[in-house]
């Protein structure tokens, strides 16, 4: 068994990250600012621990829809990089505070067919009582927009989500 945080983006969209990735939570943060000329789902940022941390509306990106209005919580996550890279962090808008879950490989499942973009940012998937929960590959979530999308994502062990990259 390993621990994960289940993130709720609203509109029934949920995903998980390894327990060790979540480093900060803020409810209705006041210090979020907007930057022009940025992707529609990545228009906001915060200064956190003297770093400029992007704030993504993953729900809007997944559905290719407009910005979500039901997201009031902001989670800051450690984004794994290559060995030698400096520590990198990214933030996600959430509709609810994350829920901690214990998961194991017996809970492994296929990615939901929709939204199709789950396949570009997920490394595995498990099910809980409320349905399928894709496990986010945070390096892909916070990759530059011109980066190669990971269309054919290898399905890793669910337990691998807790392992440092």
């Amino acid at each position: 068994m390993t621990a994960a945080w289940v993130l709720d983006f609203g509109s029934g969209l949920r995903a998980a990250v390894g327990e060790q990735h979540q480093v900060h939570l803020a409810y209705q943060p006041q210090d979020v600012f907007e930057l022009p000329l940025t992707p529609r789902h990545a228009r906001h940022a915060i200064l956190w621990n003297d770093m400029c941390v992007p704030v993504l509306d993953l729900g809007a990106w997944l559905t290719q829809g407009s910005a979500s209005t039901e997201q009031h919580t902001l989670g800051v996550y450690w984004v794994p990089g290559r060995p030698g890279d400096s520590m990198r962090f990214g933030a996600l808008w959430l509709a609810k505070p994350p829920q901690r879950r214990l998961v194991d490989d017996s809970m492994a499942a296929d990615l939901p067919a929709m939204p199709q973009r789950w396949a570009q940012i997920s490394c595995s998937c498990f099910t809980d009582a409320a349905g399928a929960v894709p496990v986010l590959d945070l390096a892909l979530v916070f990759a530059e927009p011109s980066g190669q999308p990971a269309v054919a994502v290898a399905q890793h062990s669910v337990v691998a989500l807790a392992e440092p990259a």
Partner: protein
Amino acid sequence: MIGRAAQGKFTALVLGRHRLLIAQSDLRSLEAADDVDSKAPPQGGVGWIAAGSDYWPVYALDDELQPSCAPARPRRACALLSRGDKLFGVLCDDLQFLQHAAPTLYPLPAVMALPQTPLRGVVAWGDQRAALTSAEALASHLGAI
């Protein structure tokens, strides 16, 4: 990556709710938008402005800072920017000079960098935040001649 003290002086082009920061050395002068001659504007631009013995192209940005030949919002000022020995104008609402601020410069997060983005970073001073660009990057964004 951690922020670092920004070197040099900066000027903010105020464009509606957004600000674009440029090095003060990229700014040649501030002109009145009323002085822009809108007859036979350059491709992608809104007119010409006289400076020295030449006329220079003037461009406009919409509220999302995309180039616009017909901006929805009138701007009252024209910032004349220099790139090498060429000048070009950008219509704006105001200029804000950061003379006594001690700005901190942060890299633009990778996920926010669109292809060919004119943004070069994020600058914070006091409780204010703005995107950093340069005259050269802005000229490319505007398609300036």
